[in-house]
């Protein structure tokens, strides 16, 4: 199945939770914020939010800026 992750196509073998996706991407969950199909999803619902075929995710963090 394919999702769109940060604007790029991304392949997954099967649906998985947002938590598991972060682990797979080796991202520190405390450092990021996630938009799931154009809505913010808050940390508490990451474990029960299952990423499905065609979903669009934006995973962001803070970088240097003015």
């Amino acid at each position: 199945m394919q999702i769109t992750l940060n604007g790029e196509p991304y392949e997954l073998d099967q649906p998985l939770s947002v938590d598991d996706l972060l682990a797979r991407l080796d991202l520190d969950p405390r450092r990021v914020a996630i938009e799931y199909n154009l809505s913010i999803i808050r940390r508490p619902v990451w474990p029960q939010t299952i990423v499905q075929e065609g979903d669009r995710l934006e995973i962001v963090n803070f970088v240097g800026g003015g």
Partner: protein
Amino acid sequence: MTDTPFTIAGRTFSSRLIVGSGKYPSHAVMTQAIDASGAEIVTVAVRRVDLAARGGESLRDYLEARQLFVLPNTAGCYTVDDAVRTARLAREAGLSNWVKLEVIGDERTLFPDTEALVVATRILVSEGFVVLPYTNDDPIVCRKLEDAGAAAVMPLGAPIGSGLGIQNENNIRIICEFATVPVIVDAGVGTASEAARAMELGVDGVMMQTAIAQAQDPVAMADAMKHAVLAGRLAYRAGRIPRKMYATASSPVEGLIGT
């Protein structure tokens, strides 16, 4: 002389200088420069995580270790929708509901789209954000932003990264006179005298990035800016002498020999 505190949305800050965290030659120079600036508020940008690279966490570690107040921006957003989405993500990623709101209207000048800025301010205020919009040096727009609920207004001194100094001092003065929220000059400062000048006009604070980060010695420039903002503020409060066309002697005219 005791100054009134620098307070935005009920929160008081020790420094009237706000600095950015980008465009530094290295992370080490950034940390030394921000330390030297004495700034308490530091802006950051919100970007997609780089899935290929690691190690971008050092910025956040530094900001947290120093207990600096992190002010996320919506830099690079050209629409209300993108700016609002970015602000929401910033709130989720961070610890506060503050945002330095930018809605850019033109790539070459990076001037704000003030119409969109007012709309985005209203939306974010209604969602509980403390909104600090980066805007034109236009007193009417600043008033509209204030009416929309902005916690401060951040008029530009000159285009972002231009280092041209305060281009319309009179407008900045008028903005200060009109405003009932803090006025922070954001962008345009190139060197210390210009930061001092901004403060002398009566603004509450100055925000800068390029002037420090791209200086030949960013750490020294950060130190200079710290002093410039302090000096400018003191001079503003002290009250300058009126300008006169002719000289007034500084030494007594009584007791001169040969008279």
